[in-house]
Each structure stands twice: as C-alpha cells, then as structure tokens.
C-alpha cells in the first residue's frame, strides 16, 4: 500500500508531500523525502520495553509499563522542583498533557527551544515578528537572505520547496527570480549556492545588522570602513539589494540566536526588517529545527500565556527566562527530578547541568535511545509520532497540519503514558492532601 501526502516527522519544514510504501505493516519505501527525513520514517533501533534502575551506573532491568509509570508518578509527585523538559519531537496532543502534568506536580515545563531559538522569543517580546507563511515567500520573494543558518544541511528540502528553487506565482522563474544572500561566519554549503556571501566575524552579527540599519536609513556616513569583518562597500551593496526588493525574506538560525548578542541580535534583525517595510515588503522567520518545536510554543502560549520556560510551582504560570529555563534551574541545583520527553537534554545541555542531572532521578520517555537514556533511572518507550501515531504539528511558519499514521505498533503513545502518570499523580496527591 502506498500512503500519499504523508508528513515528515523530522525537521521544521514539515514536508507534507511524501509517499510511503507500507507492506505487511512495515515501511519499505519513502519517496520525496530527503535522506534524514526518510531515515526517520524507515526507523531504526527502538527501546523495546520499559526499563528501570536505581543506580545510574548500573544495568537497566526490564519492567512493565505499569511499574515504570507508577514509579515515575511517585518521583514527580514527591519532588519539590521537578523539571519537565523536551516537548519537541511529539505532537501537540501530548504537549497539552505535558502542561497539565506540570501543573499537577507544580513543576517547570521547558522546551528544547531553551537551547536553540529561545532568544528568538525574547526578540519577539522586544520587537514583534513580521512574518508570514512559507508559501507567501515562495510566491513572492525576490530577495532571500539566510542568516546564520544552513538549510542545505539542516533543512534539506527548504530551498527546493519554499525558499529558493521553487517557482511561485510572482517569482515564476524560481531560482532566477531571486537574489540569494547568505550571512555566516563560515562558507557553508548554503553560502555556496548564494549570489552573495557575506562573511561575518564570529560574534559580530549585531554590529553588521546595525550597520545595515544605518545604511537603509540613509545614515551610511556613520558606518566605519569595515564592520564585523565586512567591508562597508559590501554592506552598502547588500543593503541596497534588500532595500530594492519587492519582497524580501530573512531566514535566520542558531548562528544568530546562539552567538554573542543572542536575543539582541534577533531584536536588531527584526528592527531591520520592520524598517525595510518602509520600502518593499519584508518578512523574517526563524528556521526551527524539530518538526513540531513550533507547536510547543503555540500550545504553551495558549495554555499558560507564555511561550516556554514556565514555572507552575505557584499554581499560576510564572515565566522569567534567565531564571526559569532548564539550565538556569539545573545550574542553581534547584531541580530534584527530571522528566525528559521528546527531546534530548543529555546531548545538548552544558556539563554543569548534566552533572546536576546525574544526582537526581531522571525519567526518559522516548521511542529511541539517546544521551538522555544514559542518565535515566526510568525509561519508557512510546510510539513514533507521525509514523505510528496521528496528531498535530506546527511547521516553522506556524501552519499546523495533521501528521498521519503509517503503521500500527503496540507501544503506547506519549499521550497515553502522560494520561496514566497524571492519573497516578492525582491519586498520590489526593491521598496526601
């Protein structure tokens, strides 16, 4: 059987045009996806059953789902400052349950954005976000800027489907309709495909953005001969290109959010784009990584009022990045239990945070083995969303789509596991109150 119009559960492009061949409940072929997407759908080694261990250096023993779930509930219910982290490689339905569980245990919920596009949210708090859907950019953009991102590697079909090579209604010659500019500290594969590559000194993006703003505002005379390693001439040329666009779009990535300046870079980039709108039309959009990391921000915002890093210990949401993000809490050694689901803290947190996690009970819910499994006391395998489970995901531009189920498996879904943990936590808390 060939299933059409399948969504890819890998990157923020959320491609929805895949064709997957399923024979005997097994994926045998994946068409139209890029390599990384296809490999996720084909699947690889799974965690086969729930496991537990007391000593993190010891061996896991296989346990029943009930035992693992009950033990997880006990840990969370008895913890004073539990961290519930991850919430990226899953569907929105499970994220809603995550917010509820966090309320039940008075914990902190934090998403992987904490260590990637978190600063983008702070930039949005400062300046807003003039943006649009990817099809708007595909149809119209004649100037395309990639800043600190490398879609050729991280979002392999992005340039083909949405940003560069695709033909649009107005941009009807595809690649030839667009001028492509890449700002990056190194000459990436994406830069190799650009019309213009602007090499920025590491950590000096903010200054380059400021210089562009000055030139756009016709105050170029205040700009020194080189800024952030870029000759003024080049800046003037690029600024004129952007200003001359009928429709300009800036895609930005971790090179901008996680380099020196962080959210101030985003603030400055949004300001540049806002000011450019006095000339043509201009938009800006973060290149989100996981296929539904955007969905967590949406769910968390409509449920708690805040986009991420929400502390529910007061019974109402409290948000203060710098205080309530995972690494803030771990480094202050406040966390006394960690619940890692659909995201890998083990692989992406700094050593000091990892050290703290070594000292507290860790529950890991994931279909696959990861660095977080290494730190865990309890491991609960679940379905792979978008392959074994239907549900909602938000593309990087905030368009939500329904993921399809391709094969049936016996694993429970994240949502089912969360439901059971919530029920058990309520039982424990109810008994003690």
């Amino acid at each position: 059987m060939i299933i059409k119009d399948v969504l890819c559960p890998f990157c923020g492009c959320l491609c929805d045009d895949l064709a997957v061949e399923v024979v005997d409940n097994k994926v045998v072929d994946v068409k139209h996806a890029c390599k990384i997407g296809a490999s996720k759908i084909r699947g690889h080694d799974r965690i086969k059953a729930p496991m537990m261990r007391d000593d993190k250096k010891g061996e896991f023993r296989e346990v029943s789902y009930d035992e693992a779930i009950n033990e997880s509930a006990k840990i969370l219910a008895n913890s004073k400052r539990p961290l519930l982290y991850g919430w990226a490689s899953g569907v929105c339905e499970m994220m809603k349950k995550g917010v509820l569980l966090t309320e039940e245990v008075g914990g902190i919920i934090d998403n992987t954005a904490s260590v990637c596009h978190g600063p983008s949210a702070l930039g949005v708090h400062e300046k807003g976000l003039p943006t649009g859907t990817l099809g708007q950019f595909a149809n119209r953009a004649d100037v395309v800027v990639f800043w600190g991102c490398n879609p050729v590697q991280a979002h392999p079909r992005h340039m083909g489907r949405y940003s560069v090579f695709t033909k649009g209604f107005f941009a009807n010659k595809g690649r030839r309709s667009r001028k492509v500019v890449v700002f990056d500290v190194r000459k990436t594969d994406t830069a190799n495909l650009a019309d213009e590559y602007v090499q920025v000194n590491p950590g000096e993006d903010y200054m380059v953005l400021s210089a562009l703003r000055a030139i756009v505002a016709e105050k170029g005379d205040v700009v020194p001969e080189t800024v952030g390693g870029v000759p003024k001439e080049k800046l003037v040329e690029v600024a004129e290109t952007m200003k001359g666009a009928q429709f300009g779009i800036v895609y930005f990535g971790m090179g901008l959010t996680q380099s020196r300046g962080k959210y101030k870079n985003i603030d400055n980039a949004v300001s540049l784009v806002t000011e450019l709108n006095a000339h043509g039309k201009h938009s800006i959009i973060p290149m989100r990584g996981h296929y539904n990391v955007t969905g967590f921000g949406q769910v968390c915002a409509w449920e708690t009022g805040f986009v991420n890093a929400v502390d529910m210990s007061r019974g109402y949401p409290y948000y203060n990045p710098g205080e309530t993000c995972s690494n803030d809490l771990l480094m202050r050694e406040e966390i006394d239990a960690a619940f890692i689901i659909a995201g890998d803290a083990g692989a992406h947190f700094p050593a000091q945070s990892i050290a703290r996690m070594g000292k507290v009970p860790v529950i890991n819910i994931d279909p696959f083995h990861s660095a977080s499994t290494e730190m865990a006391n309890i491991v609960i395998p679940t379905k792979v969303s978008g392959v074994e489970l239907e549900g909602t995901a938000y593309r990087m531009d905030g368009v939500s789509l329904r993921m399809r189920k391709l094969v049936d498996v016996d694993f429970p879904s994240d949502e089912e596991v969360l439901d059971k943990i919530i029920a058990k936590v309520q039982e424990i808390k109810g008994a003690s109150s």
Partner: protein
Amino acid sequence: MSEMLIKNATVYDPINGVNGDLMDIAVKDGKIVDSASGSAQVIDAGGRLVYPGGVDAHSHIAGSKVNIGRIMRPEDSRLGLKARTKLTRAYTGYTVPNVYAMGYRYAEMGYTTAFEAAIPILKARHTHEELEEIPIIDKGGLTLFGSNWMVMDAIRENDQDRLAAYVAWGLLASRGWGVKIVNPGGGEAWGFGKNVSGLDDPVPNFEVTPRQIIRNLAEVNEKMNLPHSIHLHCNNLGKPGNYETTLASFDICKDIKASRDRQSLHVTHVQFNSWGGNHWGDMESKSDAIADYLNKNDFLTIDMGQLVFGSATTMTADGPVQYANARLLKARWSNGDVELEDTSGVTPLEYHPQSYIHGIMWAIGLELALLTKDPWQVLMTTDHPNGGPYVNYPMVMTMLMSKKRREKEMAKIAEKTFERTSIAGIDRELDWYDIAIKTRAAHAKVLGIIEQGKGHLGVGADADIAIYDIKPDETDATVEFDKVEAAFRRSAYTIKGGEVVARDGEITATPMGRTFWVRTKVDNDGYGRMMDDLKLKFKNYYSVNMANYMVQDEYVERPVVVDTEYK
C-alpha cells in the same frame, strides 16, 4: 438530565418580546421548557434581573493572531493571574487571556456564546485547536474571504457559481460559520507592502475592485442562504476621513435582499471607520452621518468596536493599518501573511484619555449606539481586544445606560475631544431591555443563531441564562451605575445548557461548549470549475498539499452543523 426552575425572575427576553415580566423559567435537558416537575432544582431569583446568556458576535478569541499576541506580550500574560483550583485551570492575561481565562471570564459575566471574528482558512486548524480548549462557552468563527485568490479570480471572470462553490468549500475547510471580509483586496496588495485606497481602486495583479469583492460575496452569501450575512471590515480603517468609504460600502449592499430574517450586511467595529477630517490634526467624529444612514436604512447592522482606555492589543487581518499604527506609535509589530488568502497584524497599544484622538474614538463608539434609534442595529462590542478586552463590557453597558456615568468618564478626557464629537450633548439612556438587545438578542439575530437556540429564552431555546444581582424595579441605572457594573461583572448565576457554570462570579462547573459551522451544498457546474482552479492553486502556489489542508473532524469534537443550499 436534571431539571431546573428559576422562580421570580424579572425577565428581559427581547426576541420573545418579554420586557421585564416577573416570571418563572423552567429547564429540562439543557433546554427551556414550559414547566418543571416537583423534583426540579429551584433557584429563587427573588425578582432579580434575568437575561438570556450573553452572545458576542465579534471577538478575537482564538487562533494565530491571538497567540502571537500572547507570545509577543508576556507583560500582558502576567496580568490577571489566578492560580489553578481543583476545578479550574490557571488564568492569565488581560487583553490576550489564555484559553481557560477566555472561557471562564465570559461565563463569569453571564456570557455563554462567542464568535471568533477572523479565521484564515490555512490556519483554521490552529483556530479550532484553541476554540476546543476554551471552556464553557459555545463558539463559532467567521472565515476570511476578502483577499483570497480563488475569490478574486472567480469574480474577475464573472463566475458567481464558481465563487459560491469556493465559499462553500472554504467554510467547510475552515469549519466556519460565515463570510468575513477584511479590508477587501487590501490583504493581497499588502503582499507587496501596498494597500488599496478605496472601493474602486483595483487590487494589483488581480484586476478586481474592493467594491466588486463586497458586492459579489454579498450576493453569493444570500444565494447560499447562509445564517449570517457578510461581515465586513471596511477599507481605510483607522484613517481620518474614512467615514465616506464606510457610507459608500454600505450602499453597495443596499439593494441586496436578505435570504433570511436578518440584515444583508453587517459592518463591524464601525467606531474605527466613522472618522471625519483629513489628517490626525483635524480628525473628528462622523458618527452622526453613519447613524443617520442606519436610521434611514434597515438592511444593515453594525457593531460598536467601543474603545476602553488602558491597554489593548490590536489584531486584525488588516495588515497595512497595523504597520502604520506600529510605525506611528513606535510599538512592537507582528505581521502574519497567509499565502493566497489574507494577512494579519498585531500591535499592542495603550489608549490614553488625554489623547484627543483616543477621546474621539471613545466618543464615536458610544455615539453610534446612542444616535442610532433602533437598538437592534448596533451591537455592543469592543472588538476584543482591539478597542479593549471584553471584560470591560459591563462598564460599556453602564455608559450606554447612564449619562452621569459618561460624564464621569468625560471628566478624564482631553477637552479637544468635545469640539469634535457630539457625545456631551447626547441625553439618551438605554434601559434594561435595550441592553438585553445589544448584548445578546441582536447578536444572535445578526449571527443567525436564534434557530440554534441562542440569544433568547423561548421554549426550546438552549438553557443559557444569566441572573444578575440587581432588581430592575428598585435600581436606577442612570445613577447607580457602579452597582450595575458590579452586578454585570459577576453574574449571580450563569447557567449554560441547564447547568450552573458560575455563581457570584466564581466558576462552578466547566463543561465544554459546542462549535457552530455551516455546510452549503452547491450543486451545479460551478463546483467543477472551482475544483479545477483549486487543484491548480494547490499544485502551483500553496505550500501544503490539498489533502492536508482541510480541518479534520478531530478538531471540532462537538460540532453543530447547519446545512444550506445554494440556489
């Protein structure tokens, strides 16, 4: 299900012509019935004011622009915090509440139904995800068609059957209730940073005018026999002198016969479109001209879009006006273009009584309601949260009921306001019956949901009932406005579908409401032409596949579907 008997109620039920009669109301299985048995739960209203549950025909309660408002404004989410209880989830926010507070606060005021005013089809799934989580109230939403390529192409090619087929398909795809038109054509022009300047300014690249868009959608709306008329946000919103465009927009629909017992045109938040003058310096109220038109013509209705001083988050599919606002006020600006369909903008702002511009806006909203003779023609709204959040409705009600209350407010407002407005000279004070019309009955009539049991208390209606702690015959609303406002802020009882959901302003139960949407059959060859065009649009221009586009049933778990047919 249980029975209920509300005794000694002073009832205002304008749809059934009940004007302050002392009576009992019986409820069974969530509906109003003739009489109740001896085992019914009895609530003694003790002569207190009883209204049908409030209905809000125009409010921005769910979807991507509401959520970008939350994401952009953590300072707003830090307001209005209330910790979770065994029954309720945590409340956050003032202008952009979280989904829980959104439902609870409506219910606490005696409101039981609210309609989201703008659903972009491509993002409708998101809208419904939020609507599904708003507790207690029933809802629906209006779907955006005013800058849609399918719409404009069909109009340019004079193919109304195809247009109807697309509107029907779009309502189905978005699970929408009605046809919303925002700044017709302007959303497309904004795709390249431009706008349309008036009704006869053609949309770039599409060669249709805003006038044609309004006219064709209005005609098709009536041929489709939709419960609601077209719902128009006029061109040139927020610009001094725009009242002329507004009047000319009214005229476009003057000769269109409504297919049902309702208006053939609803124009929304007209406060923002009743401005005279040529620039900010000489801006003035033209509510008199607008009200005069309404007084002479009964084919149209409007809502106020009342301004409330303090914090607001403006959000609208009118993208260009939001950019202009943000630049003028140096405020944060979010924009959300939607491929092939529309756009939107979100900008926070603060309305200051000492700004005469804001003073004039404040006055215009009230003038529209008070100068228009027929209370059914002007709905009370704040265009939440554009003019201010809906939690201020009780204050607006008292301003309509009391000249003294208005004078109290006027004392705070920049004096120049009163050279440019007529509010100071208006003596009219609305009564309990008028307020029932303006906050529930007319909303239900305008939306076309009377048949669905909304906005009234006749036998068979939904048992959505608000009891307020006020005795109309012992209360002079023209002077006791503080007492009245307090009563409207916290209902003594809010009953939703026969269940007490709030008591003295505290939530007592959190059932989930239903969602209304319309399915229209278009049975002619326009449907085939539409499908051909639609498939091409998906193949060439949409960034999602057609098979993944339409909102699936999973996102509307408690639907109420109304079927109609295109003739």
